[in-house]
């Protein structure tokens, strides 16, 4: 099951040229771009790991693309996303975040049912991949 987190995740995977264009847009807005990766697909389980510090004062996407390629080579089977942070007063938040790399096989999420007191039924999602310990997934 395809993970749909962040922008563009319902579209086909972006090509490198499209990623470059998106990053160029972010830099033109004056946002600081950073790269993060994880092997836990659940959106609330953990914070994603940073791949190097955020990159400030860049003028061109080439440097970030080099880091994206570097991260892909290091973690080919993990989720990798590119974030753009807007530091202007009043925003101070991520303005754009999109996935640029995903594992070839995404097993998806299971639905677990728990039967509580008084015939209460409670449901929760769990990622199949998270069954294995960190580092052995995918």
């Amino acid at each position: 099951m395809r993970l749909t987190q962040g922008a563009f995740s319902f579209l086909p995977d972006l090509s490198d040229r499209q990623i470059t264009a998106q990053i160029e847009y972010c830099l033109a807005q004056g946002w600081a771009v950073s790269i993060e990766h994880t092997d836990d697909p659940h959106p609330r389980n953990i914070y994603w790991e940073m791949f190097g510090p955020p990159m400030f004062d860049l003028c061109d996407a080439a440097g970030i693309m080099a880091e994206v390629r570097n991260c892909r080579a290091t973690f080919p089977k993990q989720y990798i996303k590119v974030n753009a942070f807007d530091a202007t007063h009043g925003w101070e938040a991520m303005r754009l975040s999109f996935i640029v790399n995903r594992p070839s096989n995404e097993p998806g999420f299971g639905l677990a049912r728990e039967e509580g007191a008084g015939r209460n039924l409670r449901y929760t999602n769990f990622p199949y991949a998270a069954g294995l310990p960190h580092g052995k997934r995918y």
Partner: protein
Amino acid sequence: MSENLARAEDCERLDLDGLYRESAVAQTIGALDSDLVGLAPVKRRVREIAALLLVEKLRRSIGLQAVAPPLHMSFTGNPGTGKTTVAMRMASILHGLGYVRKGHLVVVTRDDLVGQFIGHTAPKTKEVLKRAMGGVLLIDEAYYLHRPENERDYGQEAIEILLQVMENQRDDLVVIFAGYKDRIDKFFASNPGMASRVTHHIEFPDYTAPELLVIAELMLQQMQYCLSDTARAALEEYIERRMTQPNFANARSVRNALDRARLRQANRLFEARARPLSRLALSTIEDADIRASRVFAAAGGSS
């Protein structure tokens, strides 16, 4: 071969001049000629590089093979000969010709590239390189990166990363090494890998005294000051004396001298503040403002 030639003759006339005028380069090169005094060999070389890139662009437009030539350069010359200024112009020329995508200039020295402890250098150098991508990276006094007396100096690591990026991401940035001629030469001699990747060596000659006077007048014009006739003569004499003294840094020394003259002029006006001032007096540098300099005192004392 003959078929190729025949086909070339069939082609319509190609408009190199149009391409030149169309790109922003014509303007930048014009400004380079008019704003910068002297530096004839530098200007010639910049024009050659611009011509090369224009022809490459034209070749590409008609489908001939055109490989972007590596353009890493070294600027050698004494302090104050305009290396940084020309580097800035170079960035906008290369941008105008589409060789670099953004055309900004990042100026760094050893401190910005080399770290303080093991594992600090690589991220630091890479960060600088990333910032310079799409533009021009000027490494001032580049020879300090190489410290032969210390085998474990981190500078070597920075050089290796630089080399790697200069080779692999040639179309992402242009690196310019700047510094004194003899030391840059020694730096390249001890780093053959570097020397073979730097294709353009541009030497900045020292300015002559008349050139420095023209520069001084340009600077004053920009600051909206003018020289009285006697002050001009004094400045001419000042420059000639200053050139023979140690630590002479060409245009930078002239700028410093003018800044000090402005200081003295302000002081002179302030002391005579009871009298009303005219607009002309406020912007004129007098003979005395220049002659009060230490340069004259030293010469007078020794002779």
